[in-house]
């Protein structure tokens, strides 16, 4: 028996989405539908080691899981810029979107349809040259040009000249330069890249397409590599892809399964629940979805065999799994994630919604002792979700999440007594999490207290209807407070007054006595104006740049006691011992 065996049969275990610079692209990612495709099908009929992602590349526009509008956009661009023949200024297209959204597939498919030649940049393999360049002992051959230069050469040449006509290769006058790998130098030194781009724009005549994957985090790659002024200057067209929608994904997956079933007679289709789960777990990443599907269908087969061995009652097999699905959704989901699903971070918007709407199940939990009469008003139906799982999946810090909850809860409460309960718990949470020596541990408890308190306080199910969510005002309030304070204190140093007295006693009157020297902003008089709402939270917004508030607040020195705990960091502790 083998200790380690590949889960994909005896093929390579290299899971697809891993992009390695240096590995030869065309091997990993064959041009879809290139003549070798049909070839493979015939030759390796029973061979399971191929990745489905590679084998089952889409062959027609209808196969694409991408939204038709996006496909049309790309097609339009190709028509207007490429098919019209070599042009003077190199048209540049930038495709952005989350990984696995089908950017590359769309482009390559369309290029093939229009029989365009695609020339792709692949980061060169060896990286040792930098060191060995001035090292005489190094072998001669290892000396190479810097990557950036190579890239520049490639881009200039590729965008100016057609490739040589090789025997057998389909000859076309039109071609496309594709850059998906960016030499690492450019991430460090963007201006270099920008210079190359400008140059190419001037001299090139074949269109250049850049594909940049964005991650959900605050990834600034697009912004760094293609800042908006550059986009304007070079007339870069941008088409941004969204993550693949669930329905499209489902269609694509069943399409892949159909193909697989046609390819291999022994193939067992995974059941519907399985597909659904895959769709859910992959969070709009078609590549990982197909991989996961392949993997999980493999598992089904293994499960089945093991069950056959273990149990005599084999009749259930596959079915038993799908029935258990319903009962233990949480556990099942966990297993799917183990099986290589994406680690989905809930969008902030949805995370907040889950806590604020607080859906409860219809029926009571059985087997619990009844509450004593004096606690009857505390009785609640079991919650559908655990707030901790939501908090865990949410990419925010505990502190920031509490602020979000605090900002948004009143809209969801019908009674002021409920608000009172919420605020009490929020107050508790703040006290719990601001004990600075134990902050790291306690902040989780803090957010638990806040979210559970909020969910408990809500007695009535919120009446349907969508309510907008807002970003917390606290950070901006804090910033304004600090800047007001700094300016005022700076301006009236000569008043020899403690800050509190300056603000509560002298300044207000100073305003009235010398209205012309009005330095203090006036109170907005009306209730409505004071209640000017903060920024709305966009649905897709995953990361809230909470740093803005915090980092700007930190460096300033004069602070009142309300903000002091914010400032405390580990440094303080150290410093206690190194004096006297």
């Amino acid at each position: 028996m083998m200790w380690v065996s590949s889960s994909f049969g005896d093929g390579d275990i290299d899971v697809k989405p891993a992009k390695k610079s240096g590995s030869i692209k065309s091997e990993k990612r064959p041009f879809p539908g290139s003549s070798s495709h049909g070839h493979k099908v015939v030759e390796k009929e029973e061979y399971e080691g191929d990745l489905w992602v590679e084998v089952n590349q889409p062959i027609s526009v209808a196969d694409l899981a991408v939204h038709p509008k996006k496909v049309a956009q790309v097609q339009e661009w190709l028509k207007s810029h490429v098919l019209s023949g070599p042009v003077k200024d190199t048209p540049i297209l930038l495709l952005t979107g989350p990984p696995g959204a089908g950017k590359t597939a769309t482009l390559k498919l369309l290029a093939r349809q229009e029989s365009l030649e695609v020339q792709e940049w692949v980061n060169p393999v060896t990286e040792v040259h930098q060191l060995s360049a001035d090292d005489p002992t190094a072998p001669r051959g290892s000396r190479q040009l810097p990557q950036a230069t190579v890239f520049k050469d490639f881009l200039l040449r590729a965008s100016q000249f057609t490739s040589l006509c090789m025997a057998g290769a389909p000859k076309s006058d039109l071609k496309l330069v594709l850059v998906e790998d960016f030499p690492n130098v450019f991430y460090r030194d963007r201006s270099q890249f920008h210079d190359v781009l400008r140059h190419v724009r001037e001299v090139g005549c074949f269109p250049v397409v850049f594909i940049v994957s964005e991650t959900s985090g605050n990834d600034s790659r697009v912004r760094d590599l293609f800042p908006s002024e550059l986009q304007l200057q070079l007339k870069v067209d941008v088409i941004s892809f969204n993550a693949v929608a669930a329905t499209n994904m489902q269609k694509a997956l069943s399409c892949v399964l159909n193909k697989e079933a046609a390819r291999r007679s022994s193939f067992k289709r995974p059941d519907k629940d399985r597909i659904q789960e895959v769709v859910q777990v992959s969070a709009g990443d078609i590549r990982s979805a197909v991989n996961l599907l392949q993997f999980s269908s493999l598992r089904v087969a293994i499960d089945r065999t093991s069950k056959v061995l273990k149990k005599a009652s084999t009749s259930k097999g596959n079915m038993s799994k799908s029935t258990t699905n319903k009962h233990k959704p949480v556990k099942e989901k966990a297993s799917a994630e183990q099986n290589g699903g994406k680690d989905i971070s809930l969008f902030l918007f949805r995370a907040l919604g889950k806590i604020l709407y607080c859906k409860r199940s219809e029926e009571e939990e059985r087997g619990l002792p009844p509450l004593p009469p004096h606690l009857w008003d505390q009785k609640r139906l079991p919650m559908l979700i655990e707030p901790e799982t939501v908090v865990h999946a949410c990419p925010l810090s505990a502190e920031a999440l509490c602020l979000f909850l605090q900002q948004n809860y009143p809209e969801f409460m019908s009674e002021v007594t409920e608000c009172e309960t919420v605020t009490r718990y929020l107050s508790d949470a703040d006290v719990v999490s601001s004990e600075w020596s134990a902050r790291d541990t306690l902040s989780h408890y803090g957010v638990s207290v806040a979210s559970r308190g909020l969910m408990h306080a809500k007695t009535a199910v919120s009446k349907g209807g969508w309510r907008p969510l807002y970003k917390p005002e606290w950070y901006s309030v804090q910033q304004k407070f600090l800047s007001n304070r700094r300016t005022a204190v700076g301006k009236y140093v000569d008043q020899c007054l403690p800050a509190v007295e300056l603000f509560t006693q002298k300044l207000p009157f100073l305003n009235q006595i010398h209205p012309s020297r009005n330095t203090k902003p006036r109170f907005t008089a009306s209730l409505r104006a004071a209640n000017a709402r903060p920024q709305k939270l966009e649905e897709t917004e995953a990361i809230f740049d909470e740093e803005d508030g915090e980092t700007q607040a930190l460096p300033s020195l004069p602070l009142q006691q309300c903000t002091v705990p914010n400032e405390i960091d580990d440094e303080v502790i150290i410093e206690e011992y190194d004096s006297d």
Partner: protein
Amino acid sequence: MHPEFVRRCDSVPAKIVAKKNITVPVLLKSRDSGCCEREHFVVRMSLWVDKYRPTSLNKLSYHTEQAAQLKRLVQNGDFPHLLVFGPSGAGKKTRIMCLLRELYGAGVEKLRIEHHNFTTPSKKKIEITTIASNYHIEVCPSDAGVQDRVVVQELIKMVAQAQQLDSSTQREFKVVLLTEVDRLTKDAQHALRRTMEKYVTTCRLILCCESTSKVIPAIRSRCLGVRVPAPSNEQICSILQTVCKKEGLALPPELASRVADKSGRNLRRAILMLEACKVQQYPFRPDQQVVEADWEVFLRETANAIVSQQSPRRLLEVRGRLYELLTHCIPPDVIIRGLLTELIDSCDGQLKAEVTQWAAYYEHRLQLGSKSIYHLEAFVAKFMSIYKKFLDEGMAAMML
């Protein structure tokens, strides 16, 4: 002027207390950023509060006995560390400045503003502004937040190590005036205690705070405590009259007593109010409205909004107003106290106790927590809920 004092100078106007409304060039030297000498011409803004502030112990208009005692204390040529405490607007600072003048002469009134930079052992930069004369330096170490210990130590060390220029004609020590001592962290207070002992030969400390309850006993016992009680309403009235006489204005006694009443025995506030009244309307009328601080009016409106309706929506509106107050740098504990006084007026007897208890509870929370809005809002919500319950019960009783 001592070079030790001047670390860095900015283009912040220097201050001249002694000669009001006169421009005087002040030379500032900088050690760190090479030698740059600048002259500042400043026109002092003339508020009555500053204009009629007594400058010598003889001219103080109340607590005269205490003033005489202080004078005797200084006449001996030396004095211990002082801890001056008393409510806001009682005249602590005035007395301290008078004392310093008694000690060093008119030179203490030539003040300059200095910016000091300190670096903590953990390489954190602290910038703090001080006001100093040749003989004393005034600093509010609590401006440095949690790093106040460094400021206390370094500053005193700096002052104490610099010798007086001419010790034959002058006192042998300088004075460091620390304000808001009650806001210092415990750490800083202990540091202060040690430094106090170490440099007792070359510098005296005058600590100034509202209440000694937050000052550690070790410091209290090392200082001579000087309590400056708030002036009585009559004393305030007579001072207001004196001010008006000097300004050449006629002040109806009714208005004076009403201003004194509104000021809450805070002389600074009383004089400011009087001047604001004068700007608003002169000649004075006895039934003239006394001008209040804008935030107090705002706070009252907020309290009214809370009392008039109790709903989540109103809570949201009140939150907006609380934020407004916070951005105007009104400290949260002042807000909660102000709200309480306003709210309690519209409460029934037994409710008063309950509301007060909750206010105290949430003010305590405020000190423990880090984000004031949680606790302020919790207090408002608590009040709303109590008050609504009270109203509902009242309604139910009426129906029966």
